[in-house]
């Protein structure tokens, strides 16, 4: 049982060991904090040719990574926040995503870009964006959002071995999650969902940190006799929703819980596809949860209303089937009791910032 942060470090170490074309660069990858611990010791072990700091120049360094990838190297880039990659979108969405297509399949861009999603401790609107649909909008990119330590390792290894540019959206609040992670160098597929819970009452699809909220909701609802079929989306592009279509056929009810903005979010595409594919099975209009239509506020007075929560998931289930509302009351009570003990702006009470 190790944390996702350790799992990421282990995956990177194994990739660097296994293939000397793999190298890693980014701001902080060789510093004493090692990108929240995920790169610690790697520069020492593999040397500064394989693991190195870069200038603060996201666009240029992304181009450098792509150029080296075209020549057969396998770069892993890291940005400490998704937000910083906004400077590199031309490189990623054009040269990264389109190169294979435009060269008639000749060029490959085996690039991995780890982008960390910030949250909490007042870091505010420009250090906590998710932007998953911005990346997902580009045909040619792969975009993944692992939520478990198992996937954090296995999908990273698969991404490094994949011949396409893979964007990993890695939630900072998931780094601390502990889970079973095999020691060997295994791969987890870069598409398809994980089924986190099996049920026939309602299909819930969540991604990244929202999976934890949905899990808490699903566990408590199960105690109330409402069984959710819960999916961790994992992979945003390519987007294979076959399992979800199947689930909705059974449950007739769909809730999508996004980690990013709801408007023009992942949920829109998922709801649209499910409606197109399984319209006749839907018993109620699907519900999307996600961030409201404004930037992340800094104050702890404001973030409570900003982030979707397990309570919101339970309430959404109640909206889908009002007859269950009384039954779901204990779930909401439990959540409220638990939450009252937790800080609204930190992953746990021990967290004392600054980031």
């Amino acid at each position: 049982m190790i944390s996702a942060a350790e799992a990421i470090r282990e995956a990177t170490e194994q990739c660097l060991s296994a293939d000397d074309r793999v190298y890693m660069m980014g701001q902080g990858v060789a510093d004493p904090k090692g990108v929240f611990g995920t790169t610690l010791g790697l520069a020492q072990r593999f040397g500064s040719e394989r693991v190195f700091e870069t200038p603060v120049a996201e666009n240029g360094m992304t181009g450098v990574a792509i150029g080296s990838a075209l020549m057969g190297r396998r770069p892993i880039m890291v940005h400490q926040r998704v937000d910083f990659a906004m400077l590199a979108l031309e490189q990623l969405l054009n040269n990264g995503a389109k190169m294979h297509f435009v060269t008639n399949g000749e060029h490959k861009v085996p690039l991995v870009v780890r982008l960390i999603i910030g949250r909490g401790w007042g870091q505010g609107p420009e250090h906590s964006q998710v932007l998953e649909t911005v990346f997902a909008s580009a045909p040619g990119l792969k975009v993944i959002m692992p939520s478990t330590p198992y996937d954090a390792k296995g999908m990273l290894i698969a991404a490094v071995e994949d011949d396409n540019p893979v964007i990993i959206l890695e939630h900072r609040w998931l780094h601390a999650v502990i889970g079973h992670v095999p020691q060997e160098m295994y791969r987890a597929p870069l598409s398809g969902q994980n089924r986190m819970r099996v049920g026939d009452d309602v299909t819930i699809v969540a991604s990244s940190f929202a999976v934890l909220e949905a899990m808490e909701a699903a566990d408590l609802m199960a105690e109330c006799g409402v069984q959710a079929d819960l999916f961790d989306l994992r992979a945003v592009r390519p987007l294979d929703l076959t399992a979800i279509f199947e689930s909705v056929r059974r449950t007739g009810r769909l809730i999508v819980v996004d980690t990013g903005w709801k408007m023009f979010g992942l949920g829109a595409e998922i709801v649209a596809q499910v409606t197109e594919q399984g319209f006749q099975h839907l018993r109620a209009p699907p519900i999307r949860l996600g961030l409201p239509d404004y930037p992340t506020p800094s104050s702890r007075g404001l973030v409570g209303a900003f982030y979707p929560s397990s309570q919101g998931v339970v309430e959404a289930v109640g909206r889908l089937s009002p007859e269950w509302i009384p039954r779901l009351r204990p779930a909401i009570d439990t959540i409220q009791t638990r939450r009252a003990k937790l800080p609204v702006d930190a992953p746990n009470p021990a967290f004392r910032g600054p980031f």
Partner: protein
Amino acid sequence: MSQDDVPQEGLFFDMLRNRRVELEISRRYEDGEMRCPVHLSVGQEAISAGVCRAMKVGDQLVSTHRAHAHYLSKGGDLKRMLAEFHGKATGCCGGRGGSMHIFDRDAGMLLSLPIVASSIPVAVGAALAMKQAQTHSVAVVIFGDAAVEEGVFHEATNFAALKQLPVVFVCENNLFSVYTHLNDRQPDLPLQRLGAAHGIRSLTADGNDVEAVYRLTTEAFERARAGGGPSLLVFDTYRWLEHCGPGYDNDIGYRTEEEFQVWKARDPIERTRQKLFALGLLDEGSEAGLNAQIDQEIAEAFDFALESPLPTSSEFQIYA
């Protein structure tokens, strides 16, 4: 500029106030009431003091993640700043921005932005507006040594030079970007070279000598105001505390205690203090008075921040 034109006592006071404010932030940070990142400027106070004292009403200041000292020196309101750090409705952004988005129209603090170098073209745009409106004001943008690595620094300086805009670029070179030394990010050359390449008058001075900072910026502002175009000023200095957060971090391995001690010996405040003592402009009594005055302001401002209400999210509007 004669010796008399330098507001020695004002510069000293600004630095002292910044130092005492930030050390108090550092001390109280553990309380967990300031729940946002803080990037302290302890050790770097000469730059904000020297630059901002040279600014006039109507001039606009643009800053970065490390904005506290800039804001306070620019005439910012300590209460509104601390309230913002506390996430309170009375903060200068109503709690929405936190420490990295300090903004205050009244103080002439146009904005500060946490994305490295993102503010630089915005300052150039402010200068363009000033030129278009013929206000004879100046836009000033302070940024760190890493910001010049971002392409947008070059795009902005090229345009400022092309249009000879009234903007002064101030680089606080504290040798590090987070824990990464300049030598890991740029070839070993003086930073001024980068402004010069764009045809911008580029000068440097000791960033721990507040008088030198003040003189250089005053001259650059006068030049800009007279239509003489932009300047780049590079001031070398050193950050005493960790990159982000309240503590010291010389122990974690990215820099040495020796290096820190060398720079500590160049403490800009102590240097000015000794000068003022020598000039008879300060004595132990008046110094104690200043400290008391500042500490009282600080205490009141913290009280204000702690007592202010949290904002509520009922009336968000994203459109003007």
